[in-house]
């Protein structure tokens, strides 16, 4: 595995990047050093040349041209290893003395290449370059030049050092990259294998933690959390879809029987009409269930939150209670509302959905209780949260069922005979959740007390 796409591995890439960075730093450092030294050495060579020429010009001035010529000829012969050049020529251009010939006269400093200089003797280093200058003397011109050997030596040493340095850097970087990559790779391979197992259906599989607490361990922990969440979701979806299938089988079966009856036994328009109307009602109920399911899904998706604005909870509660007061009375119950419209309980929310939430809770109380109960709507406003309460004196929900009733399509045993989808509380919970509110079911002694706590705006 390690050789596979090795250049794409993170540690390898990191090591590569660091190697490059380090190499560039070293090269830059050496370059600066070299340039400084070169300038220093060049001026040193020029100073030496200037000293020699000063002496020779002085000889010319004091003892005359011939004496100078003699000294130059002498010097030219004795210059060791040709590390400097000398040339004395007359005004007419003819050669007088020196170890080089035929150099054109120029003014100021110049750098002369050994390869192009006609030397008197074939000695010296062919790579030499000479820092040289012409000086006028009494009967001609004097050329003095010093070789750049020191500079080249410095350069050679620096290049040598640089080469070894770079080689060591690269070797160390590559070595550590391979080591790191191998260690990381082993861990990543474990991740990959685990995830492959998960994607092949073994959803319970988790990445083992080494306990070292390093980044990979943290990532592993996060992967495990995500997998657990995923597993929960999948289980929910499976549960929901089997619930849906189960729950819709019954009304669809009823629908089928009705249509069969219409086809088989109705022999006049009135009977047909009756059967078809019943079938339509059944279909409407099925559509309603779907609608409610989709609505819950959409609310859970949370897109509606973008439409939230400041809503007064007291206002919503008073409104809903006002609508349902006659409805409760009609079914023989009594609805009392202790909330006033100006309760000053501002929350961020969607008024339409909040209305539906409380309408749902009140309707649940009306529909799932025998007649003659009391239903109440209350609101407690506090600093941090506003608590809306819908209570009733009906049969309540047994403590061990309180978790279940929020599940989609779940219906209490005694509610199975009343029409309904079993989605009311799931929808209420979804709406509350969208608003960051919590729903708690409590015992009203007797009856049910639904407590919805909203964070205040």
């Amino acid at each position: 595995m390690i050789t596979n796409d090795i250049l794409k591995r993170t540690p390898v890439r990191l090591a590569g990047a660091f190697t490059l960075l380090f190499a560039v730093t070293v090269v830059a450092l050496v370059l600066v050093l070299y340039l400084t030294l070169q300038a220093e050495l060049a001026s040193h060579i020029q100073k030496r040349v200037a000293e020699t020429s000063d002496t020779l010009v002085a000889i010319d001035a004091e003892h005359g041209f011939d004496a100078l010529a003699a000294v130059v000829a002498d010097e030219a012969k004795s210059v060791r290893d040709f590390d400097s050049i000398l040339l004395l020529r007359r005004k007419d251009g003819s050669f007088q003395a020196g170890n080089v010939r035929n150099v054109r006269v120029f003014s100021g400093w110049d750098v002369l290449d050994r390869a192009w200089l006609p030397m008197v003797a074939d000695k010296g280093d062919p790579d030499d370059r000479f820092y040289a200058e012409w000086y006028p003397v009494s009967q001609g011109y004097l050329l003095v030049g010093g070789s750049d050997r020191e500079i080249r030596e410095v350069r050679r040493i620096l290049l040598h050092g640089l080469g070894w340095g770079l080689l060591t850097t690269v070797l160390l970087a590559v070595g550590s990259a391979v080591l790191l990559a191998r260690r990381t790779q082993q861990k990543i391979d474990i991740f990959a294998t685990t995830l492959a197992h998960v994607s092949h259906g073994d959803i319970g599989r988790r990445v083992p933690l080494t306990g070292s607490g390093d980044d990979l361990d943290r990532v592993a922990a996060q992967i495990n959390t995500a997998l657990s969440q995923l597993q929960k979701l999948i289980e929910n979806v499976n549960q929901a879809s089997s619930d849906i299938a189960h729950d819709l089988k019954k009304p669809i079966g009823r629908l089928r029987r009705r249509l069969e009856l219409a086809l088989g036994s109705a022999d006049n328009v009135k009977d047909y009409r009756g059967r078809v109307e019943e079938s339509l009602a059944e279909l409407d109920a099925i559509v309603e269930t779907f609608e409610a399911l989709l609505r819950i899904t959409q609310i859970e998706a949370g897109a509606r939150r973008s439409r939230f604005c400041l809503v007064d909870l007291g206002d919503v509660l008073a409104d809903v209670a006002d609508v349902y007061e006659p409805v409760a009375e009609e079914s023989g119950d009594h609805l009392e509302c202790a909330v006033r419209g100006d309760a000053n309980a501002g929350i961020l929310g969607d008024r339409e959905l909040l209305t539906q939430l409380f309408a749902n809770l009140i309707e649940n109380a009306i529909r799932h209780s025998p007649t003659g109960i009391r239903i109440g709507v209350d609101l407690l406003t506090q600093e941090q949260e506003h608590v809306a309460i819908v209570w009733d004196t009906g049969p309540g929900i047994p403590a061990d069922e309180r978790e279940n009733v929020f599940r989609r399509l779940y219906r209490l045993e005694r509610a199975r005979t009343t029409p309904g989808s079993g989605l009311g509380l799931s929808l209420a919970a979804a709406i509350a959740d969208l608003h960051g509110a919590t729903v708690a079911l409590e015992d009203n002694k007797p009856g049910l007390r639904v407590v919805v706590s909203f964070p205040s705006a």
Partner: protein
Amino acid sequence: MRILVIEDDPETAAYVSNGLAEEGHIAEILADGPDGLSQAMNEIYDVIVVDRMLPRLDGLSLVRALRAVGQKVPVLFLTSLGGVDDRVDGLNVGGDDYLAKPFAFSELMARINALARRPHLSDAEIVLRVGDLQMDLIARKVTRGSDVIDLQPREFRLLEVLMRNKGRVLTRTMLLERVWSFHFEPKTSVVETHISRLRTKIDRPYGRELIHTVRGCGYTIHDHQ
């Protein structure tokens, strides 16, 4: 009425156009967005029914374009099942009403009727009358004959919605939306209860009913026998 239906599902389109034809209206069907838009811009219709999902140009963009060129024709959106946010989007771009599929034709017809004649009943109206029933919108006072009838604010609102749509059927859903801002189907008889309360106040003592139940559809107010 002349009604343009822009709907790409042939079955829904046929269902709507047959129904409209039976009611004596002229329905033109177009199946894609750009065609529908150019037709809506160039011809005069009483109502346009637009599906939200259309090939090549969706319903929202179509209506936005229509409103951008100053076309004020009433528009009713049809949307797929369960579009919680669709209604708000639809009304925001300039739609006038909204109906989720699948729908009963009577519901669609009631909404088209309500839309088509809407401009004639402006909000500027001060007194609404049905027979000897009068509603003064400024004084918030309702009288029948010479009797002043005391109504709760919600009863007043319900009666106002009915009277503004005099002679037209309002379905349960339309009443729920317009009177109580309920955009969901309640499981209890909210509409029936409130209508019944209203009847005991404005109809029952007078022997002659103004609020009529339209079976399987909704309610209407009128004073024809």
